[in-house]
């Protein structure tokens, strides 16, 4: 009997298989195919992909030439078709199934910061793992004391109509190590409708740092339910950047960082551009559970067309001497679009410091006037303001990665 059965993971999941998520529209999982998903062949080189797919990957920050990368992982539908684990001696990148065969301690890290019975999506992911005996997703680990400044790139790609894609990722930064990840998620150009559930569990050992930069570019009828939990140890720093500027059907995620270590730190920065009739419900949560812990949640949201954006942030301080700040700014560009900002602060101890600022509104006429008075046409002024508004300074990345991330943001904002 394996460890997960002993821990009742599958029993818990079984009980939760119809449990609606606390937030977001309820997706009928049965509308998507999970049994007849074809197993795809491995490829030798990311450049063996067809031109369109390479372009789609590039859009979400995945470089098929693997330049300035320390590793690569590509999952198409349910198959891990490419892994490059040989680019850095500091970092391991592999399929989670292979990693579990290699390391018997790894099971302890599964279903630990994300619970299998959180909702029907996590339950589905767990049950699928049990039923098929196949675990999809990636394992990335930085070895103790290493600092690899080049990022690992990981990509989840959906290539076929009505596919239900699940993945279970585990990322571990060992003591005093540094790990950077770029994860891109996208759908093939001919895919209309699909569903993606990505369970990601991250563990930061004392003194480590992880930066996790995620770019989403889904088709218009894709339902997206990422489930992310992060455990941050003593003196460790977790930085999460999230960029979504293309239309999607619905996306709901609320990644949670547990700052359980002394002087641990978690920063969430997100850029959300709502288009067409997308429903985007993205939040970030930081639980400040140890002395000296700090949390920051910063989001910028722009709603266009008929899109709806729920911008959530939740900081909870449970012990003294913790500090948190939440910042949520939104622009509503059309009468049919909608932003609902939900900043939450929760303090259950004395002597802690938490603050938030939230502002939602239209583009300021004063700002447009100011730019037109410099000779910029009104339309260009508006787009400058929107782009400027979304183009936040991403902090905490090494120089090279910061530049790359800026390029990714620029590319994402090009269509805004």
């Amino acid at each position, binding site marked *: 009997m394996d460890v997960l059965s002993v821990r009742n993971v599958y029993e818990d999941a079984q009980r939760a298989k119809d449990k609606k998520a606390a937030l977001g529209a309820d997706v009928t999982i049965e509308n998507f195919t999970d049994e007849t998903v074809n197993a795809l062949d491995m490829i030798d080189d990311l450049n063996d992909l067809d031109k369109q797919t390479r372009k789609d990957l590039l859009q979400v920050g995945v470089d098929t030439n693997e330049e300035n990368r320390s590793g690569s992982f590509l999952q198409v539908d349910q198959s891990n078709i490419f892994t490059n684990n040989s680019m850095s001696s500091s970092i391991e990148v592999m399929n989670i199934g292979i990693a579990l065969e290699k390391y018997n301690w790894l099971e302890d890290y599964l279903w630990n910061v994300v619970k299998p019975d959180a909702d029907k999506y996590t339950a589905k992911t767990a049950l699928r793992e049990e039923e098929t005996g196949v675990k999809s997703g990636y394992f990335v680990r930085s070895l103790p004391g290493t600092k690899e400044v080049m990022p690992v790139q990981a990509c989840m790609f959906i290539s076929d109509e009505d596919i239900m894609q699940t993945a279970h990722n585990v990322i571990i930064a060992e003591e005093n190590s540094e790990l950077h990840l770029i994860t891109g998620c996208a759908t093939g150009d001919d895919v209309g409708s699909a569903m993606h559930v990505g369970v990601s569990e991250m563990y930061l050992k004392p003194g480590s740092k992880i930066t996790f930069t995620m770019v989403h570019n889904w088709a218009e009828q894709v339902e997206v339910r990422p489930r992310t939990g992060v455990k941050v140890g003593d003196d460790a720093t977790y930085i999460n950047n999230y960029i979504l500027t293309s239309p999607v059907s619905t996306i709901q995620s609320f990644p949670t960082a547990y700052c359980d270590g002394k002087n641990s730190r978690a920063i969430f920065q997100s850029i959300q551009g709502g288009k067409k009739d997308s429903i985007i419900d993205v939040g970030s949560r930081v639980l400040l559970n140890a002395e000296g812990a700090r949390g920051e949640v910063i989001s910028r949201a722009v709603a266009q067309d008929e899109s709806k954006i729920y911008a959530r942030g939740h900081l909870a301080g449970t012990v003294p001497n913790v500090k948190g700040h939440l910042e949520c*700014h939104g622009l509503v560009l059309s009468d049919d679009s909608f932003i609902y900002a939900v900043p939450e602060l929760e303090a259950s101890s004395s002597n802690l410091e938490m603050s938030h600022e939230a502002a939602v509104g239209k583009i*300021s*006429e*004063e*700002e447009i*006037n*100011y*730019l*037109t*008075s*410099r*000779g*910029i*046409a*009104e339309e260009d002024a508006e787009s*400058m*303001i929107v*782009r*400027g*508004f*979304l*183009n*936040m300074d991403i902090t905490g990345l090494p120089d090279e990665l910061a530049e790359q991330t800026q390029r990714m943001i620029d590319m994402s904002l090009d269509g805004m």
Partner: protein
Amino acid sequence: MLLEIENLAVEVAGKRVLKDINLSIDEGETHVLLGPNGAGKSTLFLTILGFPQYEVVQGSIKFKGQDITKLTTAERVKLGIGVSFQTPPSIRGVSVRDLLKIESHQDMDEELNPRMQELAKQLKFSDEFLDRDVNLGFSGGEVKRSEILQLLAQMPDFTMFDEPDSGVDIENVELLASEIGTLLDKDKPQGSRKRSGLLITHLGYILNFVSADKAHVLIDGVISCSGNPTEILEDIRKNGFNGCVECAQCL
């Protein structure tokens, strides 16, 4: 005439703020607009600039012989009109450097041209400062200097300055005045000046450093008197704007 305003009446949100303004500014001239708070000075400025909420209900504005009353702000600016604001808005994600490139018609991918880099230094801006979001968290003096720096990028033929000296310490007033002088061709002999300007000031302090050819006193939406700046300022200092009201009544 470079700028010709005839019988101008302006409404803001249905309220008539300017009543019957006539004002002409020739090439190479610097005029001063004086008047108490709420007289309509800024309204006149922003009407010349063409902001949408200032509705011209009567009269016309001509610039370089062309009727610009119906042009958009950006179109007027392209013709050679510039402005420095008293309290401009801050804009997130739009840096001073971005604006300077646009204003000096540079490609966004290019480095800021050497002339602007030099001028930025003269106005005491570090290279890092130029990457800050425009006006966001700027001190009063930084706002004014950034406004003037942007105008130096544009080099308009006609520049309006709204209270360029308010909230600026003495040392920086001289620095600003010298750059305002550049924008108004003050470094050239009077006869060969091409650039013109209109300064709003209600204390007239800046006039100690920037010479003006003519002053106008705007009271209650009407220009109540025009004339020699020194004499008018002296009158106002002695009798306040009430003196101008009485004077206007004599006319």
